[in-house]
């Protein structure tokens, strides 16, 4: 029988397993099969959480840290640990100033309003209990133009909450914009990516607006191991390191911290059980869809299955990820992806997966005189121009009528500023004009700059200087 991460039942306790730390009867078995009594288990857990911060020295004294709360198991444990830590003076040397935010994603889910309300009620319970400054915002806000402020509801100020809590006062036009984008995204895999990216973008905007410089995100080790595999599967190999490390510094102003990464999902469930924490059930978009409908759902199933049979699976995957790095530091800031802020990773090498893909697409696009195919890489070839009915790349087959209104922006225009993984995602977005204004504005800005550059090309002395010190 496998004991890893299983709360021992009474018969086991009677059989005389005793705690590895003290000699009390054990009630919990932690990941390496060590039996613990309740007190020692909580101690071990808290210590590990604290050590994660201590090791990295990522948080400065007095820094404002925004906890991204989702209501899930790991998120609840994280919020609880922070609160306990500050109350009991666990973080003696480290005093940061926490705030907490919940982003309502219910627009993606088809759920009865009653269920949504019940979820929000429980979420509010958690936020109020934390006694930290607490905020609620909703995913639609990510559709707001980048120069305007997003709407953030303060749970700590009662008058505002009483009146508007249940409908969150969403601007109907944002709602409509989001729905358009959502319906224009044809696969669940792309929807999941989009949801994740918009959520992170919104979290960063909220942080900046409220003056926070760090975001605490509660992904467990199990979740991050899954992320490593989904990243690889979606062509996002170059972001693995940033996506799983304790500090994700892709954004210069706000970095993301992942303090729950040292725990696997079972340990977290045990901690919550021992502390009597009740998490909030918030369904995600693939909850009902089944494992073969999206890369995330499939991978989650795959990792959980392996973990059951080979208990070191999660930690081995994480160790592999730990040895990877991103070349972000060495990179020019203008060469990051407009959507996910990762390094642009489209290889210019002639022999690479991206050039092989470009070649295949060119081969089949060139329908008129295919026998004249030479290996020259025309500058207009690009992943997004793949002739597929689901893409919006000016096939002229009537499927992209909406684009004609905005001839300025087809997916080719957007794609050149994106990393490989985001190009894949965009390929499943039928109408690129539905993308968030933050993306579209930036694409247009970059296009204008390129036009300018072309015009003054002959008078520039230094090839490398793009005059863009953004």
């Amino acid at each position: 029988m496998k004991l890893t991460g299983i709360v021992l039942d009474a018969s086991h306790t009677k059989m005389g397993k005793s705690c590895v730390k003290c000699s009390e009867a054990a009630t919990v078995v932690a990941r390496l099969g060590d039996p613990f009594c309740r007190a020692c288990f909580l101690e071990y857990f808290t210590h590990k959480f604290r050590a994660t911060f201590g090791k990295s020295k990522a948080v400065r004294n007095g820094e404002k840290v925004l906890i991204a709360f989702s209501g899930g198991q790991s998120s609840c444990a994280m919020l609880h640990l922070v609160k306990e830590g500050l109350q009991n003076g666990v973080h003696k040397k480290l005093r940061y100033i926490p705030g907490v935010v919940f982003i309502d994603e219910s627009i993606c889910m088809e759920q009865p309003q009653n269920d949504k309300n019940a979820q929000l009620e429980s979420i509010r319970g958690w936020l109020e209990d934390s006694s930290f400054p607490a905020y609620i915002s909703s995913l639609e806000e990510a559709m707001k133009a980048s120069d305007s402020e997003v709407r953030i509801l303060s749970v700590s100020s009662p008058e505002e909450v009483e009146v508007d809590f249940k409908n969150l006062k969403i601007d109907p036009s944002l709602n409509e914009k989001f729905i358009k984008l959502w319906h224009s995204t044809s696969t669940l895999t792309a929807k999941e990516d989009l949801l994740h990216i918009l959520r992170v973008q919104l979290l960063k905007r909220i942080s900046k607006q409220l003056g926070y410089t760090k975001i605490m995100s509660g992904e467990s080790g199990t979740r991050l191991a899954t992320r490593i595999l989904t990243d690889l599967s979606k062509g996002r190999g170059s972001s693995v390191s940033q996506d799983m490390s304790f500090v994700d510094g892709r954004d210069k102003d706000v970095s993301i911290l992942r303090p729950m990464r040292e725990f696997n999902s079972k340990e977290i469930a045990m901690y919550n059980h021992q502390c009597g924490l009740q998490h909030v059930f918030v369904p995600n978009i693939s909850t009902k869809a089944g494992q073969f409908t999206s890369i995330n759902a499939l991978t989650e199933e795959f990792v959980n299955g392996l973990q059951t049979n080979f208990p070191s699976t999660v930690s081995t995957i994480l160790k592999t990820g730990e040895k990877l790095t991103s070349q972000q530091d060495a990179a020019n800031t203008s060469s990051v992806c407009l959507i996910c802020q990762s390094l642009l990773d489209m290889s210019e090498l002639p022999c690479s997966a991206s050039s092989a893909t470009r070649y295949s697409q060119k081969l089949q696009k060139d329908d008129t005189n295919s026998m004249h195919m030479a290996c020259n890489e025309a500058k207009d070839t690009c992943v997004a121009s793949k002739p597929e009915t689901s893409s919006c790349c000016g096939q002229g087959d009537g499927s992209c009528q909406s684009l004609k209104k905005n001839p300025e922006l087809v997916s080719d225009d957007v794609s050149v500023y994106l990393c490989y993984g985001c190009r894949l995602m965009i390929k499943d977005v039928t109408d690129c004009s539905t993308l968030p204004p933050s993306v579209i504005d930036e694409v247009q800005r970059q296009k204008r700059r390129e036009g300018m550059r072309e015009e003054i090309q002959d008078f520039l002395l230094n090839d490398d200087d793009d005059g863009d010190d953004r």
Partner: protein
Amino acid sequence: MPVSCRMCGKSAILKRPKTGDALCKECFFFAFESEINYTITSGKLFNRGDRVAVGASGGKDSTVLAYILKLLNERHDYGIELILLSVDEGITGYRDDSLETVKRNQYQYDLPLTIVSYEELYGWTMDAIVKQIGLKNNCTFCGVFRRQALDRGALLVKANKIATGHNADDIAETVLMNVLRGDIARLRRCTAITTGADGALPRCKPFKYTYEKEIVMYAYFKKLDYFSTECIYSPNAYRGHARSYLKDLERIRPSAIIDIIHSGESLSIKKDVKMPTQGVCSRCNYISSHSVCKACTLLEGLNKGLPKLGIGKTHKSRRLLDAAEKAGDSVKTETENSSTSSSTMKKEDLTF
């Protein structure tokens, strides 16, 4: 209502697994061959005057590889010389048939063939090895021995390069496997199109970006003769999981295979991560990260008669060996015996 070919407009007869486009047979051949030529030229896989040993197993990948290399060499005048090189592992009922296929290919494609056997190279057939170690670790043996066998065989026929039939699916699967196993050194190497560090000769993979399904499709429509080589000794379970995960991924997003290879190509490893240093095996001179290479270590274990059973029990393993050699129809008891020995072995596996 016939669908028309995306490229030429004639009636299409197939849907390309890689792109989903409907094509006619001729256009599919053209696309398939052009892509492989592109890989070969852009990756600079061959130089004029190279003598290239094509690892030929009689299976689909190597059969199509031999066929297409010959075709492209003539069409684009690479100026290379091709030799078929087969390894006979000594697996009854597996190689017997596939070697027949290779021999037929030799005449069909008019390419010289050399067969090297495990028995010649190592003094052991795979059948004999399996009898000794059981089914559990035999793929390790087979893989390690085959790797060297190709090199040794290639040197024998005076080739200066080896071309193998590893396709995009294989490479994507290997990327996943290396992540799951935590093998960072292999993870870094496995997406290289030409590897020089692994063996005595550079090896290249012209099918690196070619989907397995398309290779089958090409062989099917070209009516190429190949032998379905499912190794009768089942592959290890872990790799099986990775493979079925990959198949499921492909179903959700057909480009996933290439996407994983792209990921593999864009991984960079932290500078402070220790990598095994490459040296040379003190016994056989084969490139190795240890003083004695894995093949020699495995071989020593075999020759000493199951050292994993521990000293003092040698007579037991001797009996086992003797029984194995005599083995006629008592296969069942044999397997039972060997499975106990392989579980004993596991602990000492760590010393490798």
